[in-house]
């Protein structure tokens, strides 16, 4: 009984979500085949982005809101290859290669900034996203076409500089997803993308066992102890963010090749918010996140996203109410997920205190 309760408590967020979705699916009236297809597509689209959050959590830096920096780097790569008309798999690979140095640089900047804001990394990362967004606009809206020569007039505004607000990625659209075509019973499977995600997962698993990965975990558990043990704390934290930014950069490229269009000035903005929400819904916490959390989270979060507009509409009978309902639910459940986690943590601390029978330990 006790064990069952613990199990329930530990997976409360996931269970809550699963129940909510189970209730919403029949209400939305969406055909199951469509749901399956959408979820499988979205899994391929979003998994890498969400994966990029794992390493900073391990290093005790919380959820990396600075991952939008990586997303921006990825977009710069895509803008450039679209401008040069490099298409297909070579185009996508080149975009990733071009974005890599940008992502590393931005990641290093982000890590250095976060090192100066220990204890409030999440909020700082959030604001850093806004700040770098300004720099990004400066580059894409003013430097491209004037300082950085652009070849393709279809990308440049007719005033002569600045990139148009929507870029059609026809050249690289779904090249990963369709590289190994597979159709099972009317369901299209992005096999190659899945392989890529699997490879990234393996990378994360392998990385955790390396010396650097162990160091990161040590830093995440206790900075002072890690420091005493001779681990370069600051450097390790920066590396965690650099890797995360790099993964986010590749993640955004995978995301956009599936979407097929790039909102030049906005595509990156929600990348952080939605990935973090997905990870939390998958049962992760600010201090503990694993690969199953990523996969479960993406599936649950996106199922909710797919069914809630129509479910909301059918429930309250008006399209606009349905839209607000969807947003209410998606923000609300993130809040609930965070609250449940915090409750559990406090309960755990109380238990630990009781077990110690010592004086209260300050948190």
């Amino acid at each position: 009984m006790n064990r069952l309760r613990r199990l329930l408590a530990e997976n409360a967020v996931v269970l809550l979500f699963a129940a909510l979705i189970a209730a919403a699916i029949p209400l939305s009236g969406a055909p199951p085949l469509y749901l399956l297809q959408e979820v499988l597509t979205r899994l391929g689209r979003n998994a890498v982005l969400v994966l990029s959050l794992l390493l900073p959590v391990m290093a005790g830096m919380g959820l990396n809101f600075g991952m939008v920096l990586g997303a921006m780097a990825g977009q710069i790569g895509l803008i450039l290859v679209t401008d040069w008309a490099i298409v297909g798999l070579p185009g996508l690979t080149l975009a990733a290669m071009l974005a890599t140095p940008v992502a590393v640089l931005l990641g290093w900047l982000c890590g250095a900034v976060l090192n100066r804001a220990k204890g409030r990394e999440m909020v700082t990362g959030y604001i850093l996203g806004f700040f770098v967004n300004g720099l990004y606009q400066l580059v894409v809206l003013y430097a491209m076409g004037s300082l950085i020569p652009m070849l393709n007039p279809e990308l440049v505004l007719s005033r002569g500089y600045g990139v148009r607000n929507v870029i059609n990625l026809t050249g690289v659209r779904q090249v990963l997803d369709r590289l190994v075509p597979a159709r099972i019973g009317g369901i299209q499977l992005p096999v190659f993308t899945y392989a890529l995600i699997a490879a990234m997962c393996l990378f994360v698993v392998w990385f955790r066992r390396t010396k650097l990965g162990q160091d990161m975990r040590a830093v995440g558990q206790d900075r002072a102890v890690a420091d005493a043990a001779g681990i370069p704390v600051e450097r390790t934290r920066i590396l965690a963010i650099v890797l995360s930014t790099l993964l986010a950069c590749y993640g955004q490229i995978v995301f956009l090749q599936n979407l097929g269009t790039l909102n030049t000035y906005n595509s990156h903005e929600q990348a952080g918010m939605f990935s973090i929400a997905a990870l939390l819904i998958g049962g992760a916490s600010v201090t503990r996140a694993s690969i199953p959390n990523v996969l479960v989270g993406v599936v649950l979060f996106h199922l909710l996203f797919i069914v809630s507009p129509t479910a909301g509409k059918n429930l309250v009978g008006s399209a606009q109410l349905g839209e607000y309902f969807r947003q209410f639910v998606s923000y609300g459940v993130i809040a609930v997920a965070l609250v449940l986690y915090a409750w559990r943590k406090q309960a755990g601390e109380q238990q630990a205190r009781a077990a110690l029978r010592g004086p209260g330990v300050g948190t």
Partner: protein
Amino acid sequence: MSRTRRRAFLRAALLAGAVVLGAWLARTGRAHTLFLDNAAVTLGGQEHPAPGAVEVSLDGGKPEVLEQAERAMRQVVGPVHRLAIEVRQGPGGPRRVEREIRLPFGWDAAVVSLPAALAGAPAGAVVTRWQPPPPEDAPAEQMIQQKDADVLPQR
């Protein structure tokens, strides 16, 4: 070699490798628009008339029939392509010409002159860079007004 030097060397090699790979990717992935032009051309004072009804295929793809003075648009990827032209009828009689065309990296779009290719003209005459027409020649919007008879009376 000391460890640091070996490391520096390794890094330089890695960087060079990445640059080479990037350049190769850019070259092979570059998309071009080709206008296959079956119109008469004058090369070095000599006129090459356009043959009637030719079958053109690129890189062994599906052939397309082009009548005299017709133009086809194709999207191709990469620098080197095989152009195959099969003339059904015309001044020179039925024949088949195959030749390789090379596209410079910087060209977004190129015009391939089929008569020039048939005549065995040098590459510079067969493949030329496409230039967009000047804006003065661009058409402008033409206004259309609703007929008064179609306007519903006001409530």
